[in-house]
């Protein structure tokens, strides 16, 4: 079973502060993703990575940056958090199998920006 850990699981912060969410996988899956989940919007892709130092934007990337300096870790950074970034953030990895490979999700990180 794919091991994927998100940290922190819960965070409350203030507008304007930087926030970093971490996603760690215990296997060497190439693809990693960050999504946000909001009522009425489902899951929306923020950024994804297809290898170390290889990342690309999703549909809601404004205000977010990512880094992947090693295979197992994918970091999501909010440089200056805003209330509109209050959400539940999910990391996912693509299980091997090419384009037909399904995603395996972490348990989520709930972020509240006051």
């Amino acid at each position, binding site marked *: 079973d794919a091991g994927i850990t998100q940290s922190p699981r819960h965070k409350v912060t203030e507008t304007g502060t930087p926030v970093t969410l971490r996603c760690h996988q215990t296997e060497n899956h190439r*693809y990693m*993703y960050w*999504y946000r989940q909001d009522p*009425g*919007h*489902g*899951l*929306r*892709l923020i950024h*994804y990575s*297809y290898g170390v130092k290889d990342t*690309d934007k*999703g549909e809601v990337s404004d205000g977010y940056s990512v880094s992947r300096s090693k295979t197992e870790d994918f970091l999501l950074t909010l440089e200056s958090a805003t209330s509109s970034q209050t959400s539940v953030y*999910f990391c*996912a990895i693509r299980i091997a199998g*090419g*384009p*037909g490979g*399904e*995603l*395996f*999700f*972490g*348990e*989520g990180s709930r972020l509240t920006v006051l």
Partner: protein
Amino acid sequence: AQSVAQPEDQVNVAEGNPLTVKCTYSVSGNPYLFWYVQYPNRGLQFLLKYITGDNLVKGSYGFEAEFNKSQTSFHLKKPSALVSDSALYFCAVRPPTNTDKLIFGTGTRLQVFP
């Protein structure tokens, strides 16, 4: 634009009755289609997928889905609903023109009543 639609925010069904959760998609070419389930305060769990071949796909927990190319649909079904099936269900599509991304619908809440 590439998209997935789940036309029903909520589906209510009595235990023991068949259930259907609807999904339609809009992508060019032959898509890769997925269903996920989310229980409260948890990450998404993979249920089943359609890649190619038989239009009827069987997945976890007795769920199945039927791919209909002419109607661009991928409805999730189960012959006999259980109260424990109550959860949030997401349909997702991976376009053949951009297999890096997985696009999610807005979700359908399934409520199974005893």
